[in-house]
């Protein structure tokens, strides 16, 4: 796939050039670089916000534009369309797209070493293992259906024994007992359920054989060839951001209530809960954003069990080595 300079890019580039004389001196040399996020602004992306606020990306010569995601945003599409240089994705959809559609993607890093998605249920009717899901109604966002099907397959449960319905990211049906469990970020929704006066329990899909990363850092092969220096810089700045964030997970979110988090309608307590809960899922002996050989092998093995046959060359760890 060749990336062409279309009219929009051209306009953007000329507008950028026109604005150049007015920028402060330090910003002049920076290369424009765009990342497509996977979700609306919340603590899940704290490391990147710190990197932008403290100028870690600028230190790498990057002028970073951050595009928020959302339930209906397909992050991979942004890099295919050339709207972003880099995207945070779920590895199952990314690898499926490479295998089945020949999508020219490479995975160059991973934010979550353990995928935070899990099955969340109420403590008074707990679902603690995949076996407990039999005969139950589970609400699953359509994007994640293959993940749940994977866990069912790995644990030898017939797909037809579980009733999967669409999930609209609202825990109310769960609390009202309309559904028995939902698939959501275990770093997030248990907080909401607790504020509604119920106790939540959950298990990670990761702990039951679906050993995949999440928020994998994905680029097109074209970008990998032409912007290698920028990508390494992005990884380095992002790692610095995450290190800074976890030195004190309660330090940064309060500063963003009027900026990054403005208008999301989420409370500070929710972000603090999230930021604290995600730390163990992101840590790796090899550092934040890392991908180890064992980790990659575990990803490929889990995906192979649901018929997504990825290969080692879909992951490129050489940029991480350059950090």
């Amino acid at each position, binding site marked *: *796939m060749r990336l*062409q300079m*279309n*009219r*929009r890019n051209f306009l953007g580039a000329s507008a950028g050039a026109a604005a150049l004389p007015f920028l402060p001196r330090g910003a002049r040399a920076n290369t424009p670089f765009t990342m497509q996020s996977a979700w*609306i*602004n919340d603590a899940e992306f704290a490391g990147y916000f710190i990197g932008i606020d403290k100028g870690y990306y600028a230190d790498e010569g990057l002028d970073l534009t951050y*595009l*928020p*995601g*959302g*339930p*209906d*945003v*397909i992050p*991979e*599409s*942004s890099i*295919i*369309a*050339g*709207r972003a240089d880099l995207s945070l994705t779920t590895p199952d*959809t990314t690898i*499926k*797209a490479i295998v089945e*559609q020949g*999508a020219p993607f490479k995975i160059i890093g991973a934010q979550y070493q353990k995928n935070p998605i899990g099955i969340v249920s109420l403590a008074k009717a707990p679902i603690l293992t995949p076996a407990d899901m039999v005969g139950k109604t589970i609400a699953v*966002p*359509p*994007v*994640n*259906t*293959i993940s749940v099907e994977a866990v069912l397959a790995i644990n030898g449960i017939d797909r037809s024994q579980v009733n*999967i*319905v*669409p999930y*609209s*990211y*609202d*825990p*109310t*049906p769960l*609390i*009202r007992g*309309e559904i028995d469990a939902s698939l*959501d970020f275990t770093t*997030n*929704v248990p907080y*909401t*359920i607790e*504020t*509604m006066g119920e106790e939540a329990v959950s298990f990670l899909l990761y702990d039951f054989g679906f050993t995949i990363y999440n928020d994998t850092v994905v680029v097109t092969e074209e970008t990998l060839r032409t912007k290698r220096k920028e990508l390494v810089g992005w990884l380095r700045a992002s790692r610095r951001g995450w290190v800074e964030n976890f030195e004190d997970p309660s330090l940064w979110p309060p500063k963003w209530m009027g900026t990054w988090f*403005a*208008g*999301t*309608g*989420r409370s500070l307590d*929710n972000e603090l809960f999230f930021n604290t809960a995600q730390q163990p899922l992101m840590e790796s002996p090899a550092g934040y954003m890392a991908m180890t050989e064992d980790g990659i092998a575990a990803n490929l093995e889990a995906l192979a069990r649901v018929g997504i046959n990825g290969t080692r060359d879909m992951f490129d760890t050489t940029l991480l080595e350059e950090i």
Partner: protein
Amino acid sequence: MAIDLWRRHTGLRNALVLIALWEVVGQFKLVAGGALPALSAIVRRLSVDWSDYPGHIWATLAASGSGFLIGNTIAILAGILFVIFPVLLRVTRGLNIAIFALPPIAIAPILALTLSGMAPRITLAALGVYFVTMSATVIGLSQHDSRTADLVRAYGGGRWQVLWRVQLRGALPSILSGFRVAAPAAVLGAILAEFGGGGRWGLGTYLLGSLGRAEPDRIWGIGLVATLIAGLSYGAFALLSARLVGTSRAVSLNPAAPPSLQPDTGALWYRLALVAASVALPFLVWWAFLRGLSVPAMLGKTPWDVIRYLFLDPTSAQAQARLLAALAQTLPITFAGMALGMGFAFVLAVSSRMLPEFTRAFMPVALITQTMPLVALTPLLVLLLGRGTSLTLWVTVSVTFFPAYVMMAQGLALVPRAAVELPRAYGARAWSELRLVAIPASVPYVFAAMRLTAPRALLGVMIAEWLATGRGLGNLLNQSRGYLDFNMIWTVAAVSVLISVAFYQAVLIAERRVLARMGMTTTE
């Protein structure tokens, strides 16, 4: 005195009763254990959250306002062109219907990727208003009083003079009634695109962030603010048209039918060529859109790609099977929902004539169901009705009846006074007057409403399937997005448009037969 005042403001009274009922239901958590919060709780929450709102409201207003302006400008210009050059209307027929029938949920993510910034929202808002205003313009322009035109011609006025002095003025009430429907549609389009487009600001984006927090009072608050914006725009155009209709309605009955856009004239080869062009144009535009924006091949599928995917690839059999299974779930319920929505609209239009104060009390409720984003309303409906067939039917009725009602009410309101006065002079009661004159006279509008409703019925079903039931075409579309199956996304979008066009065409054929028998003309 007090009783007199009370009687005169029955509409207000009914609204107050409704609000009081809402408050009681909310306070005692009578609906689904508190899924419908009390109005006071919603207002309290609004004041707590108020600092969040200005940015979101502004983004939604900017997008829907620009879309409304652009879409309506194009629509009125197109309507005028179509009336002057009826052949254009025939050539662009397929395209017009296709634009109208595009399921916004299918194209929102595609627009978000091919355009940038606010453009996807503006485009979706503009697409939402185009067809309504365009057809209102054409109806208004072609149904002018031919006697006035004769007068202008007798004094030496040409085609442009007639257009300017007679047709455009005569069309104003119709265009304004189009605006009335178009205004909430623009707000909805913008909000729907916010769901697909990412970005940080806009009521749709705000709603997204709030859905996961299980706070019905806030979700209702956002919905009510969206409703207020849409309701105010609707009210403004309703007021304007009430002012203007009074001065432009025919005072006496014109016995001659207006010179209409004669369908299907010319030699056979000519007619066939026009039909072929009309069918080919939407596909050409589809292809040109992808080419013009240089959308990467993996993301943007051409008509040929879709045909290949469905019929020529090794995986075609599997793709066909998935599509047919989805259609078998979607189509029956679409027909049922459409019938219910039309019936409801008809009852409402008749009752608005017979019992105006009932309608006035009902209108706020109707507007809420129209402008409250279905994504916010659906969780509530799910709690009330579960995830089964009745939910899909309710959602479908709620998206179809409003435009149908506005069209039908317009038809009933525009019955020439002379025709109404005849039965009245013979002492007929209101009901027989309605039965003998008003309803037959407004049959063209009933058919126009039906054509307007058919594609919306399919959209309603798809929205319910996408958001709640996990069945049928809507679910297939949603799931394909999850699997990055761009071929299937384009296929489902194309198939749903084709089905809508087929609906439309079927209604039109029935309409021509019936109206020909009644000596009326089709309002294209």
